[in-house]
């Protein structure tokens, strides 16, 4: 059985009706293409490096297949907005503009990595890009998202916290508690459920009583913007733009992105090799719903032959990623006790003005 929601066409038609967004410009579309080919090149390179044992570690969750989900939705944000996600975070980091060199160095556990080699694949972040991180416990980042949004609400700012959450996390307590809190406190969070059909190896239908995952948010009185074909960056952008503005002015909102993972749950996932039905399903998605091809077709149908620009973006991506690999491999590994122990705590800046004799004479 090929996983693709049967009511997708109907859902998308409903979204189309209410859509009145300014269409993205040619420059925007070309830039989305640039981002998507960079992510794909980065992720496929990571996969290869893992196979060659040049990236070690047991966890490496690739964003290949998901590109339009992140690219289309984050295009709706402004600079002061916030982004937080789970462990499938490489693509999110690159879209936000993190340096691929620092990201690749983190994959290899190097000192020059964005987290100094302490976080690895699942813990990318950048304060400069308002990227609050990738988190490794399923659902664990969801209350953090609510807390980041609370800061905006507390100080009267209208910045939105865009929060990516996998389909599997919609079954755990963090999801339900965090969505409910965001509702009662009117927190400006846009919850984006990236539904790629599987929580690790378990199909959504076997894990969730409600398989239209965005409808879970309705239980908490949260505005749902429905399901989106997240292989199509334009569809993603159109809905995200409305939802971001809704969250900015009103409070929490949810969108369900229907997408697919090309490299399994993580790189150690061999289900696609072991099961014929899964590899057939993967081939079907790649053939019919490939996000980079969908975007390319869309650009060409509107603007004619832009193949030179697209080829340049692909070539640049190859160069950037190759440079990031060279940089990472040449970088130093953390190796000392100081490297190990540093940044466990903030060095206290508290000045204890206390007169230690206070209280000494009393019993």
């Amino acid at each position, binding site marked *: 059985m090929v996983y693709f929601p049967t009511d997708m066409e109907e859902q998308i038609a409903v979204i189309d009706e209410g859509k009145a967004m300014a269409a993205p410009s040619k420059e925007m579309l070309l830039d989305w293409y640039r981002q998507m080919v960079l992510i794909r090149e980065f992720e496929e390179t990571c996969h290869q490096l893992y196979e060659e044992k040049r990236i070690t570690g047991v966890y490496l969750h690739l964003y290949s297949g998901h590109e339009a989900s992140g690219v289309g939705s984050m295009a709706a944000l402004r600079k002061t907005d916030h982004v937080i996600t789970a462990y499938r975070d490489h693509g999110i980091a690159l879209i936000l503009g993190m340096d691929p060199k620092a990201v690749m160095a983190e994959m290899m556990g190097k000192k020059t990595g964005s987290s100094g080699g302490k976080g690895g694949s699942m813990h990318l972040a950048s304060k400069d890009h308002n990227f609050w991180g990738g988190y490794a416990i399923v659902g*664990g980042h969801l209350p953090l998202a609510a807390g980041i949004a609370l800061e905006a609400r507390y100080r009267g700012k209208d910045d939105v916290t865009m929060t990516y959450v996998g389909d599997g996390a919609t079954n755990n307590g963090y999801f339900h508690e965090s969505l409910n809190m965001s509702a009662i406190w009117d927190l400006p969070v846009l919850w984006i459920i990236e539904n790629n059909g599987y929580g690790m190896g378990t199909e959504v239908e076997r894990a969730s009583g409600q398989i239209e995952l965005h409808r879970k948010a309705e239980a908490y009185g949260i505005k749902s913007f429905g399901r989106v074909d997240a292989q199509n960056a334009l569809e993603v952008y159109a809905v995200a733009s409305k939802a971001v503005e809704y969250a900015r002015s009103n409070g929490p909102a949810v969108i369900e992105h229907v997408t697919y993972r090309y490299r399994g749950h993580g790189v150690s996932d061999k289900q696609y090799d072991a099961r014929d039905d899964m590899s057939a399903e993967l081939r079907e998605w790649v053939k019919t719903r490939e996000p980079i091809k969908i975007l390319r077709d869309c650009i060409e149908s509107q603007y004619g032959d832009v193949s030179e620009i697209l080829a340049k973006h692909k070539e640049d991506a190859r160069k950037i990623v190759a440079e990031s690999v060279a940089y990472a491999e040449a970088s130093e590994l953390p190796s000392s006790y100081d490297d190990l122990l540093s940044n466990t705590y903030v060095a206290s800046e508290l000045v204890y003005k*206390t007169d230690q004799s*206070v*209280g000494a004479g009393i019993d």
Partner: protein
Amino acid sequence: MAARNVAMREAIRRALREEMRRDENVFIMGEEVAHWQGTHRVTRGFLEEFGERRVRDTPISEMAIGGLAVGAAMAGLRPVAEFMTINFAFLALDAIANHAAKVRYFFDGMFKAPLVYRAASGWGNQATASHSHAPEPIFAHFPGIYVGCPSNSLDAYGMLKASIRDDNPVLFTESIALYPKPSPMPDDLNDDYLIPIGKGDIKREGADVSLVAYARGVDWALQAARQLARDDIEAEVVDLRWLRPLDMELVYNSFKKTNRCVIVEESLPMYSFGGEIAANLQEHMFDYMDAPIKRVAAEDVPLPYSKDIELLALPNARKVVDAVKEIL
């Protein structure tokens, strides 16, 4: 020095109120902290003074309370998140151990999480097994967070203030048994009276045996010391105050003088505070040791409802006195 007896809950309330007045970024959230005025009445009057923006009732959602505090702190606020009792903080253990304690480390210092989890802790009052825990050592297991457990009003005041002002996450436990207990606080106490994080305190001096304790254990140790004094045994009571960082130097200095030690704690005995102190002593103070190290802790059993067997399970001054006499 002029002093006045103040219940620990009043001292905690005063510290919280002063810190909220001092710093606009400090806010409190938790179950029943606002309209109900606090389950333990610590936040009585707060809603009226600070309003709903800074005194926030939450739903019964410990996972979200635990994690939301982390996000808000990373973003620049200074949340004080109250768990109605520490038993409920088990539901938030992932947020505490995996997120509060680790966000600084796994992003290599990019973020800080200056938050305080407050939790009422302790056994007794026929609260029954699932509401009867003093599990501070569980939380102190994790590097990246501090754990503070005051034993009297003045300590609670100075320790909570330091916890709120420090840039690291702190789990701060408040012994339910000590909430109503009055102890002296000086009249001219400065608003900036802070007790340094990780600094323990000698609560009573003595040369014959070191009674090492924290929170309610200090109370039992002091009672035992008074009883022992009638037999001319002078016990030194060492109050660690913080389980992390742990002021072992203070314990070593006392032990060098007394050469004997009884560890007193309200927590369960296995994989415990007592085990940690004893292990450090045997490793670093072997040459000073004149007797086996004794531990007085709760019995290794879930707490029952019925009064007499509940009391059997708890530590008390008598058990401490008996332990001391076994090693003298």
